[in-house]
């Protein structure tokens, strides 16, 4: 691992993983020379790993309403949502509330 990399963990649950190749956990190494926010992470996810029907995950520049985002187990609504700046080893969890009942 080089110092020029930003390592973070992604997690998907309650059906959100179905849109990402059915993989529940991923480790990412992002370009550490630039600043990463949740907004730029979502763009990266769209370009690289959102393989199935992006409209079920994204709406405009943000996640579709009904998908909950937790950063290090804290509601992203308390952390500035899209503006939150990702830190090394952050854990970003996406939970779908849109599946099942």
């Amino acid at each position: 691992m080089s110092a020029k990399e930003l390592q973070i963990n992604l997690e998907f649950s309650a059906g959100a993983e179905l849109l990402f190749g059915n993989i529940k956990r991923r480790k990412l190494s992002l370009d550490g020379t630039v600043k990463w926010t949740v907004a730029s992470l979502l763009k990266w996810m769209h370009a690289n790993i959102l393989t199935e029907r992006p409209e079920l995950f994204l709406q405009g520049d943000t996640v579709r309403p009904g998908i909950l985002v937790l950063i290090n187990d804290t509601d992203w609504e308390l952390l500035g949502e899209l503006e939150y700046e990702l830190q090394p080893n952050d854990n970003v969890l996406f939970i779908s509330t849109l599946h099942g009942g």
Partner: protein
Amino acid sequence: MPINCKSSCGKKAVLKRPKTGDALCKECFFAAFEAEIHHTIISSNLFRRGEKVAVAASGGKDSTVLAHVLKLLNETHDYGLELVLLSIDEGITGYRDDSLETVKQNRDDYQMALKILSYEELYGWTMDRIVAQIGRSNNCTFCGVFRRQALDRGAKQLGVDSIATGHNADDIAETVLMNILRGDTARLRRCTDIKTGGGDDTIPRVKPLKYSYEKEIVMYAHYKKLVYFSTECVFAPNAYRGHARAFLKDLEKVRPSVIMDIIHSGEQLRFKDSVKKPVRGVCARCGFVSSQQPCKACVLLEGLNRGLPKLGIGKKSKGDRMIANQDREIALRERANLVKNDF
């Protein structure tokens, strides 16, 4: 920089409640979430001491949280209830068989009795076989009608005093919207009721999570590490509800109180006496409650057994014509057979 819990317990807040906008820590959120459900149960007189209550358990997030919270409140507030789990097995391979495993986990975790009732044993048809016969256009109608009655039958077999279902605030707001869009005054009248049924002939249904937001239910399950099943039914999702749901989620983003607002609007609606109300009676064939004669479940079942699956889908007059036609054909064929046998 971390935000502190609003109740000044000194801990770090982990979530923003959509219902109140409060930032709370895990423990204060659990306490608030549970206290509100307790308040709903008490203020609406949902249960009485000594009653036996079936929790309609699908293995999904709502019924899993409902079973967990009811067990907890029953113990901490000494409701004196006997809680049992009631599950319906529609016979959908890759969906219900998996979710029933989750229900069995609930049974073991919560030490509650579990009764599983299958479409196969009740109706002689699994959803897999129904779909094989009718295709995927009206399968949700069959499934929904059969499930409603299956819960009643299961509850009767278990001898329970009421059935608790996991309908949450988002579900109810969605249903209000859908009933307005469809102009369904009969359902609009009933859909916000926290308790339905309960006459001489029906087992009451109660909705203890009526005022609980979906986001909070999911967060509660997440932080409590409750295991639930979250796969969409393998047969076509309910498209109409899907639209109402997406619309509601968009509204909620702009104004989180919209869910409560819609429920309250639904509760306040009053209908003129001149608006026709369906008369609830009992199906002459199966004996379960219905406003039609025979009930929808019996008509759908007759359609399946006659090989006329469209029977209960369209207008009743059309269905009656289909039955009459088939009876005539059968009579003709029987006569032809008789003629042949004479030789």
